[in-house]
């Protein structure tokens, strides 16, 4: 089974039925899989804070939401995480491509990578880092944890997890 399919299977098994995405090269496979699943309403966002607003509304409408985005989005969404998701105590699994880690070809991506965990830590956001494919075995438990505690939870997935970038 592909890792993208396994990840989306875990979302579906946990009743996540509303997913917003902002694309990243690393996430292309999982976004395709989200789009392909009839159990999931896939709504692409133009910016990640907008996506978190959509997720907040979907949650209040009775759906379990998730957002799929790049780690650069942490810089975009700090205010939304603090004043919407956390302040109103809403659950939000955030599947995040962790750009700027080992095997990264684009130097600028490193500039946000070095801040990513520090920012998540400063925000008291529970953070998991998938480095090897087997790390995704915890995704089911992470999703259950997210909807148990009603918090945003970050799942950082680096290039090694996705098997590198392929030909550049």
């Amino acid at each position, binding site marked *: 089974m592909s890792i993208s399919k396994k990840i989306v299977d875990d979302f579906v098994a946990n009743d996540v039925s509303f997913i917003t995405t902002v694309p990243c090269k690393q996430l292309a496979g999982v976004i395709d899989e989200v789009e392909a699943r009839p159990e999931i309403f896939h709504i*692409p966002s133009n910016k990640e804070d907008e996506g978190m607003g959509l997720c907040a509304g979907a949650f209040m409408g009775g759906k379990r*939401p998730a957002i799929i985005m790049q780690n650069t989005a942490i810089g975009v969404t700090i205010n939304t995480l603090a004043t919407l998701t956390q302040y109103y105590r809403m659950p939000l699994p955030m599947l995040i491509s962790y750009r700027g880690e080992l095997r990264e070809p684009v130097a600028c991506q490193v500039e946000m990578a070095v801040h990513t965990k520090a920012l998540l830590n400063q925000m008291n956001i529970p953070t998991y880092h998938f480095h090897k494919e087997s790390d995704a075995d915890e995704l089911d438990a992470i999703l259950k944890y997210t909807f148990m505690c009603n918090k945003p939870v970050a799942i950082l997935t680096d290039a090694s997890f996705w098997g590198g970038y392929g030909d550049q």
Partner: protein
Amino acid sequence: MIRSEILREIAPILHDNLVVCNIGLPSQELHMIDDNAKNFYMLGTMGLSSSIGLGLALAQDKTVISIDGDGSVLTNLGTLPTIANNVADNYILLIVDNGSYGSTGDQPTYAGKKTKLEDVAKACGCENVVVCKDVDTGKVLQEAIDSKQMTIIVTKCDSGNIKLPVITMDPVVIRDRFMKAVAG
């Protein structure tokens, strides 16, 4: 008319529907005029009223009215293509366009200058865009609800504010009672 006068006039229409209300004075005014469980007050996060409302409308069947301002829509202009491309016929976006950032001291917005949000919405692909005068807001809003078609309303009004207190309700209480009203 200024925004608070419009809200007072349309409050009986809003009362029967789920309302997501913009940060700052709009939420404070609605809270003062007709506080009820079907109102979701934004206490922060400028710009996301339309997004929260759209997500809510897509997730369930009841009519949702997002009350937004011209300044807040400009803050989150990417919302309009998302709305246009994800049609929810139980969704109405009511943009109270007074051409100014009311909650921060009535600084002019670009919507009060050359930018026409109704034209932006149409260019983004929104199909039912209605522009109205402040005095016609209630009539236009009721027609939009009755049409059962996703509608963007841009109501043109005067800038100006009334003095009133901030909302002191706990956000989790606002959210919890709203979710019970959504599910009820």
